[in-house]
């Protein structure tokens, strides 16, 4: 675990450490088992192609969960993730590396909590952001 980040360390516009994920078909099967989402477009290539897709695709909610991990890694043991919002704009495929990224858009103190707002997204090897979103976290303060 990286060392704890504090509210005072954060500036608007700064990027947070990214999280790289090598998504494999095996991981899609593990996600299907853990989440209970057995829709065949995520593990049966023939089925996926019959519905008009180029192949099996990564579950949108697996991508959202990766973004959750990006945030919980960043806020550390003394911070909390308060809100995560993700839109599924495009498809991602197993075998391609996915990088989860985030950028601070705003910081403010509200009801005694040190709140940081972020823009978050996943990026495929072509640089496409197929799962963009936003987040709100609370960080500890040195004050």
């Amino acid at each position, binding site marked *: 675990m990286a060392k704890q980040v504090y509210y005072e360390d954060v500036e608007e516009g700064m990027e947070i450490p990214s999280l790289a994920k090598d998504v494999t078909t095996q991981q899609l099967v593990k996600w299907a088992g*853990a*989440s*209970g989402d057995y829709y065949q477009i995520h593990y049966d290539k023939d089925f996926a192609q019959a519905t008009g897709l180029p192949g099996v695709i990564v*579950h949108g909610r697996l991508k*959202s969960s990766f973004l959750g991990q990006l945030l*919980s890694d960043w806020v550390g043991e003394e911070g909390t993730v308060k*809100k*995560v*919002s993700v839109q599924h704009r495009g498809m991602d495929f197993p075998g391609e590396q996915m990088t989860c990224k985030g950028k601070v858009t705003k910081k403010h103190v509200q009801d005694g909590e040190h709140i940081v707002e972020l823009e978050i997204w996943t990026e495929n090897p072509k640089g496409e952001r197929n799962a963009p979103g936003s987040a709100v976290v609370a960080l500890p303060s040195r004050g």
Partner: protein
Amino acid sequence: MAEQINLDEMKKAIGTQSEPSTIEIEKGMIRKFAEAIEDPNPLWQDEQHAKKARHGGIVAPPGLLMAVMMVGQGSPMPFRPPMPRILDGGGEWEYFKPIRPGDVLTVAGKLFDIREREGRMGKMLFIVSETTWTNQKGELVARALGTLINY
């Protein structure tokens, strides 16, 4: 797709609530989830370690509530989606209290909104459902809005 869609008829269903269900949060469930997304954070698995952190014990990672069937999902839909294909359009999860092993959560769903939009592939319906999770102490733990795209 010459499907006749009666949006007004479907919109009448907005506000329909599902029968609440309960789920018990277990350490094994949290571990299985963390393993599936390959998240090694000790806060989700290591009691000794988690004790010293902010929440004072193992908690669920934010993604757990995104694993729909694992944590229950209220998506009451008193009609069949009129178009042939469904995509998960995304969602929004708001967390109010930590979720801990041993918690018994009541899951309630509500049909929140239905919108229609003309897309590249013709008419698309955006069906939004709200899910809330309340713990055994009666505290609202989290709220989510999930969007299904029917096209």
